[in-house]
């Protein structure tokens, strides 16, 4: 969720002053939502922090660990590999989708409206398919030698390019990344398209009078007009990169070796498979803190732009 937009909006709300009817009955209306929020999000978040400070196997006694679980993470080769992979994957989760999403959105903005709506719907389709289904489907496509990808390569006379796409140490991460890009670009496209449609036509007219060509227009009018959407897109896609689980679990299980291991996969393994709840919780807390920092920094920057 792009919390920074939400925060920005709610602050503006608060400044707008009191509104609506004074009713204490409101508490009855929010009670179910507040209860669900407390039981499933707020209390467990607190417990995760507590568990991260204990040694616990999931059953039996806990022993106080202090910061030992966090220290373990710093020197763990799996965790280090996972974090490095998450950083590498931001190229595929964030950079490529933003470039592709921007190009498609600016192209869509130029076609006529009757064609734009169905095209937008078609291009957004990958984002609605369950990541598990996407992973299973792409694993089929990547099947070495006999899968669809190698079949297509053979068909166009490029069979020499055939690879063990998901099995090779060098290719597994980029192959996974392509699938991530396939999932993520639609969201960026939709965000940017909505943003482009809010840019006043006068700005384009003015640019044209100044003799700006097509690319100059994209660079000097469209891109600056999209800076808030760009910020939202960066935050959302970077967070998605650090939260990746479904895709990697079903495409490669993190392999070969640790070539595609990611942080959430390590949380899952530690807490639910290796019986090391403490270090799983510590890694979970670290991911939450990271997401909060990214969101709040982006919010601060966006606020400065709005001023």
């Amino acid at each position: 969720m792009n919390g920074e937009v939400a925060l920005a909006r709610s602050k503006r709300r608060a400044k707008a002053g009191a509104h609506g009817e004074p009713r204490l009955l409101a508490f009855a209306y929010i009670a179910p939502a507040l209860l669900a929020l407390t039981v499933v999000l707020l209390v467990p978040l607190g417990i995760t922090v507590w568990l991260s400070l204990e040694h616990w196997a999931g059953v039996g006694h806990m022993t106080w660990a202090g910061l030992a679980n966090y220290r373990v993470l710093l020197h763990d080769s799996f965790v280090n590999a996972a974090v490095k992979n998450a950083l590498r994957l931001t190229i595929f989760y964030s950079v490529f989708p933003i470039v592709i999403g921007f190009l498609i959105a600016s192209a869509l903005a130029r076609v006529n409206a009757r064609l734009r709506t169905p095209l937008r719907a078609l291009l957004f389709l990958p984002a609605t398919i369950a990541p598990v289904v996407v992973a299973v489907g792409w694993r089929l496509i990547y099947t070495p030698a006999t899968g669809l990808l190698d079949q297509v390569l053979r068909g166009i006379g490029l069979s020499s390019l055939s690879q063990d796409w998901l099995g090779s140490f060098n290719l597994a991460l980029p192959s996974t990344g392509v699938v991530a890009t396939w999932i993520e670009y639609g969201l960026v496209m939709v965000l940017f398209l909505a943003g482009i449609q809010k840019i006043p036509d006068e700005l384009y007219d003015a640019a044209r009078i100044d003799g700006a060509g097509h690319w100059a227009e994209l660079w000097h009018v469209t891109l600056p007009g999209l800076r808030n959407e760009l910020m939202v897109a960066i935050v959302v896609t970077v967070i998605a990169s650090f939260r990746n689980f479904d895709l990697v679990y079903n495409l490669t299980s993190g392999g070969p070796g640790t070539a595609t291991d990611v942080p959430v996969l390590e949380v899952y393994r530690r807490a639910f498979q290796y019986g090391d709840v403490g270090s799983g919780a510590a890694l979970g807390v670290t991911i939450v803190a990271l997401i909060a920092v990214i969101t709040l920094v982006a919010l601060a920057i966006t606020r400065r732009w709005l001023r």
Partner: protein
Amino acid sequence: MTKRELWVTNACLTIAVVFALAPVVGIVLVALQVTSPGGGITSLTNLTLHNFSTAWAQGYMSDSLRSSAIIVAISVPTATLCCTLAGYAFGTMRWPGRGPLLGLFVFALMIPIEGTLIPIYFIWRDVGIVDTYWAVILTEVGYSMPFGVFWLSQAFRGVPRELLEAARIDRASTWQTFRLVAGPMCMPAITTLAALQFMWVWNDFLMPLVMISSQGRLTATVSLSFFQGEYVVNYTALAAASVIVALPVVTAYIFLQRKFIAGFASGAVKA
């Protein structure tokens, strides 16, 4: 637009459509193959639906689709109702503590499931509902709150104040105002939320993977993942199973695409 710009635009969109659709079309075709020893396409004309019945039986599709349907049927209406009631209160009423409480929901937008899943699992285990639908349903309902309450607070805030005052002057109770005036006006936002929640709950993976372990109760996504992990790889059946699991949400998307996209574009990216 100059001729060259038009050409660039068309080329850009054509490549994009191919990139978006080729994998989908490819997998659907594999699912329709009579035989596909290595997961490729052997024929474009000789197609069969037989793989779907194989997937249905071997992939335990009827059990897992029923599990997912039950979980969606209970959690989505419950979550939507809770969010609607809270959104009505936040959007139209004034009371002490309103600001900080709304802030709490907005703050929770930043809490991803990875940060809470471990204790939720152990809490549900101690309550005795792990490996039942309730473990998944209650967690999904909770996780629907931050975005849903925020989204509907905005919607109810858009109801004109004069209408609410007119209702009060006509001696409508708070509940009647909700049922007869504010609720119906916010129906488009409520159905958008329900559509998004349907998609999130159906497509969810990590949480149901942790919560459910009995074969007969696995959700559709988890079941598909286990089917893929089996030793005997039947490519055509696996492709057919993927299509089956994707179909409910894709069908809903086809009919409600404007709602889905509007929800996403206004910031509906779930934490």
